């Protein structure tokens, strides 16, 4: 429109918040890939989902409270996974066959612990969605109970109760005494 000047406002972070930048996202990528793997069961999909999540998040400026970026990203990843699962179900794609899980654990962790990790991830695939989301948030991503509760939009007590049940079921599947 003639005579109207478009004013571009610089987007500044509120004082108690930080802007999510590609660099800060990159440092969380490995943990999010493992979380995505636990949710979708395929490494390739997991990497795609994390990439897609980052693209969505970076599409516009996002400000999160300090130290809450990981919880925020996990919630964004869960939304992406949910959308992906819905579209996969619509397309009627068959679930991926079990794949090589060697990458999931640290080689320096030793062969026994690596095997344990593989068993645990395989067992997590059998959990219900709420239990899996909880164990992913706490044990895979490393959120505190409180952060996990915030991320999953539930109570801390519920997180701990679900975490107990999730670990119990995984332990049984792993053959723990």
């Amino acid at each position, binding site marked *: 429109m003639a005579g109207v000047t478009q004013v571009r406002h610089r987007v500044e972070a509120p004082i108690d918040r930080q802007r999510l930048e590609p660099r800060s996202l990159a440092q969380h990528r490995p943990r999010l890939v493992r979380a995505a793997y636990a949710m979708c069961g395929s490494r390739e999909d997991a990497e795609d989902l994390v990439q897609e999540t980052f693209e969505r998040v970076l599409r516009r400026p996002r400000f999160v409270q300090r130290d809450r970026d990981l919880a925020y990203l996990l919630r964004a990843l869960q939304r992406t996974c949910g959308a992906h699962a819905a579209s996969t179900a619509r397309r009627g794609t068959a679930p991926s066959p079990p794949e090589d899980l060697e990458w999931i654990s640290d080689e320096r962790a030793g062969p026994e612990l690596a095997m344990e990790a593989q068993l645990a991830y395989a067992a997590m695939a059998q959990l219900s969605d709420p239990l899996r989301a909880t164990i992913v948030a706490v*044990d895979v991503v490393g959120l505190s109970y409180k952060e996990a509760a915030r991320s999953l939009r539930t109570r801390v007590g519920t997180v701990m109760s679900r975490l107990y049940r999730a670990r119990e079921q995984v*332990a049984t599947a792993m053959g723990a005494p």
Partner: protein
Amino acid sequence: MTRHLDPRALSKRDRALLVRVADGTVPERSRARAQRRLHAIADAERLIARQRRVAGALAAGDERVAAAPAPARVLGRRLLLRVGPAVAALAAVIVLVFVGPSGEPSIVARAADLAKLPATQAAPAADGRVLRAAVGGVPFPDWGAKLHWKATGMRRDELDGRATTTVFYEHTSHRLAYTIVSGPPLPRPDGARIVRRGDREVALYRDPSHGGHDIAVFERGGRTCVVAGHVMSISTLMDLAGWRGPSVRRS
């Protein structure tokens, strides 16, 4: 008489308690009550062990391995296949963490080794939230009041021309050494797991030659700090490493 509950009939509160005990996150003020409650849960120890086994297995993932480009992962697997998993794992730890580029153990590794040595001086006195000992203006924490790790002794050494001061702390039967290395920050040990505590990055690794000592390396006030020793849970080490004292004193 103690009443034993069926583990299948655990209340939500008991499940939360077992999770907290397994993770080592029972608040100090609630420990006595938690202990009493645990006595009432049949098979509590076994249930806690199961919780820990799963949490430990899922923590075996490592950021660097997951993030490494494909050739690095393939190389790692080939190494595993060729020399055997146990040898490869041990070799990786030794090469990446303990040995520097020159083949000598790194200063950080030797600073962690100081945890094996005895104290040569009395513990410094407490002065508010810190002790009356500092390196380059970075004081040692007083963990006695809040975290119940009591300073029991101190020693001073020199590693590659860098002065180090180590304060030893004890809690129940566990002992920790907190070493601050003078001079500019040292490179972070390769191969260590990087964990964030607030805005502080802590490099964590385990030294098998210490009988399983856990080691945390981080920076405070521009100095490298190394906390090494035996802890019940890695979260304890993280809590200690994440301790924030008053701002650094510059004399």
